[in-house]
């Protein structure tokens, strides 16, 4: 599941395109196309959830080239070609390395509090479903108020904190 942010990355785009093909245009009456589509969807799901490996990229590339010959009809060929075009993007390799540059893949996205902007209001902590944010609310007469901190290992990139912060004090890490 992605974020509500209005961005999309190349792997997600490829995934959605294949899902749409699988749901509507793909007839399933030849052997290679439905299997290639399903395996490609599985691989892209792994890639966009941070579990992609380099070998997945090899496999996807192979699908995009070989399915052109193997598919029985132009629809399958088209799907293969579109996949091939998408794969040209360097974003795929970066996803395998664990980075979704556009923040579209929650699993590969992390946020951090910008310390100098944090007003320690606590809204982010309340919003976080993962208990990933540490910190205490601002107390005026105390001198040791510290900015809130997002624990990267617990953050799953859902960006609820971003939406909740009134001070624009949370930025994307990857």
């Amino acid at each position, binding site marked *: 599941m992605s974020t509500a942010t209005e961005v999309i990355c190349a792997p997600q785009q490829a995934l959605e395109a294949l899902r749409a093909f699988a749901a509507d245009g793909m*007839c399933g*009456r030849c052997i290679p196309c439905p299997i290639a589509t399903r395996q490609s969807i599985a691989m892209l799901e792994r890639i966009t959830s941070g579990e992609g490996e380099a070998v997945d990229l090899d496999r996807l590339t192979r699908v995009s080239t070989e399915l052109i*010959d193997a598919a029985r009809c132009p629809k399958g060929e088209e799907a293969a070609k579109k996949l091939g075009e998408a794969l040209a993007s360097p974003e795929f390799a970066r996803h395998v390395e664990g980075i979704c540059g556009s923040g579209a893949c929650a699993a590969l996205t992390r946020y951090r509090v910008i310390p100098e902007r944090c007003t320690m209001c606590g809204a982010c902590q309340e919003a976080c479903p993962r208990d990933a944010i540490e910190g205490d609310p601002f107390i005026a007469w105390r001198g040791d108020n510290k900015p809130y901190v997002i624990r990267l290992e617990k953050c799953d990139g859902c960006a609820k904190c971003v939406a909740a912060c009134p001070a624009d004090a949370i930025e994307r890490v990857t």
Partner: protein
Amino acid sequence: MAKEITLHIDGQPVTVPEGTKILQAAESIGIEIPRLCYFEGLPASGSCRLCLVEIEGQSRLAVSCTQRVKEGMAVLTASDRVLRSRRFILELIWSTHDGDCTTCEKAGACDLQRYTYDLDVDKEKYGLYAPDEIPSDLGDPLLERNLRLCILCGRCIRACREKSQGILDFMERGMSTIVTTSLNRPLAESGCDFCGSCIEVCPVGCLVERDRKLRGREWEFESVETLCGHCNLGCTQVIDLAHGEIVRTRPGADGYLCVRGKFGWDYLSSDDRLTAPLVRNGDSLQETTWAEALARAAEGLAGAGSVAGLVGPNVTNETVKAFGELLATSFGSQDVGFTGGGVPFGALSTFGGLKALAGVGDVEKAKKILAIGPSLAEGFPRARLAIKRAVDAGAKLIVVDPNESELAAIATLHLKPKAGAEAALLTAIGKALVDGDLHNAEAEGVAEAIPAIRELGVPDAGVSPEAIAEAAKLFAKGKGVVVSSALTCDVLSRSAGLLMLTGRKKGALLPLHPSANPWAGVLLSAGASGDGAKGIYALGTDPVAAGEPPNADFLVVQDLFLTKTAEMADVVLPLRAFAEEEGTVVGAGGKLIAVNAAAPSDLPANWQILADLADAAGKPLPYKSIRDVRAAAKETISAVKGSLAFPSMNGAGDSEELRPYERFELPEPSWVARSQIRRGGSAAGVSEAKEEVAA
């Protein structure tokens, strides 16, 4: 003659008729193009994509199983590009094929396995995605469907459509596509007739006979080809044996077995089979040695005074011949009856003899078919297939059946006589032929018969004169056959009459009989009356079950099981079953067709048992080997000539009243009660059997 095309495949020239597919052309010069969905004899679908080849000058790879050859084509069946594509497709298939070659029943005979080996394919390339919901066993009787192994080639769909009821298809779409019945109902509720044609074509281990499982590896099997003995259509049957036991049967070159040929062999190894002779001791029968039993039988029959013999239709010609010879030579009796029950040789003898007998080949080539009788398609699926093929090729079909039926639905003309009035209807058609001058006046024996036919009154069969006239007109000309599951004297003699009137003498009449060798009766001289005989020898027949218990002072019974008749006997001898015997049967055209001893048996050959009995009686048979018996049988058969006297078309039927409608006038063969298949082999019959077996 078809135009010839010359092309090159992998650099080799090949010349084939126009219309040949590239894949077939390659095969003709020994080049096998891998394929999973193509199957010889079924329409090609081009869906597996494994058979793609490169054609010089064409940018796209071509589907060799559907594309026809063109003059000057240059085809490459194994270029780098083709091989890459092939490996890709096989890798993909493995990613959905949840099987283990080490324990799979198909190992050694699996196309997927073979191509994977040949091309050194990495089966792990795309991992395995096989959701748990895909069933590994749909729970049908007789055969297992493991959809986790299905590669969606669709061969089973096409085979079922071509050969049987067409109950399978691709359901759903896209990645959810599966091959099954409507609403995924069990086979038995979907009209499956359990012919097993789907199993024959499945390239992987998805479809497997349940009885075959864990009984051996494909390469361990010994295969023997013979004829199926469940009816007189004589389909080739290959029996696979592992460690000397039957594991499976499958069709031979003619490519089809019905449920009885495919699954009805279990009775052969039933625990109830008679394996040793029995002799009566007071109230009970006790096992004894062959020597003792034969001595007692010889003594008993010789001492009885007058002896009669009865032999059934499920034995080889050699057995029948030896039996008749035994009765004549050793016991001085000509009184031997062939209890084919409802198989009137009279009809044949007045109609060109055995040459008139048709086979399935004659039916498939016919242009006009007259199909008579109840449950023809259900009782004789091979006949149904033959008729269907002929009709698909343009033949006209006239069905005579008071009921609606599958064949009636595809008939050009469906006549519905009153129950029991089939013979009357045939007489009426004969009269219509003559009255309309549609008969073949030059045909042998016809001219003499015409005056009498013109004099005939038309019996009331419950069919309108217009329909009768139409039938006569339709059936008059062209290569024609009569196929009948109604085996009364009257029906067959009038069928013969119609064929004679229309000048059809060879390969024209096909009575359908649920036994292996119904014409063997011609090997015996006069028919038996059995009246007054004090000693009776019944071989492979059960008069008690037929409602005519033998009344004899001394009774010898030889059969597969301890039948009701056997329970009454003084001596009981085991009988070698048809599938266990080497010999011949009388087939289409009166030809002798060989059968092999395909199933194992510890018993002596039947003819040998009879010869031993003759020895025990002190009057040996003139046969030293089975070849001698065969030669004698052959001689007798070739002497059978038709008298070409025109069969009686008179009135409603000789002096017999119109009979109530009966499906078969035969007792059920003794094996049916000991088999998982019921007579007729209907799906309902199979489910009942399964419940009984489970109970």
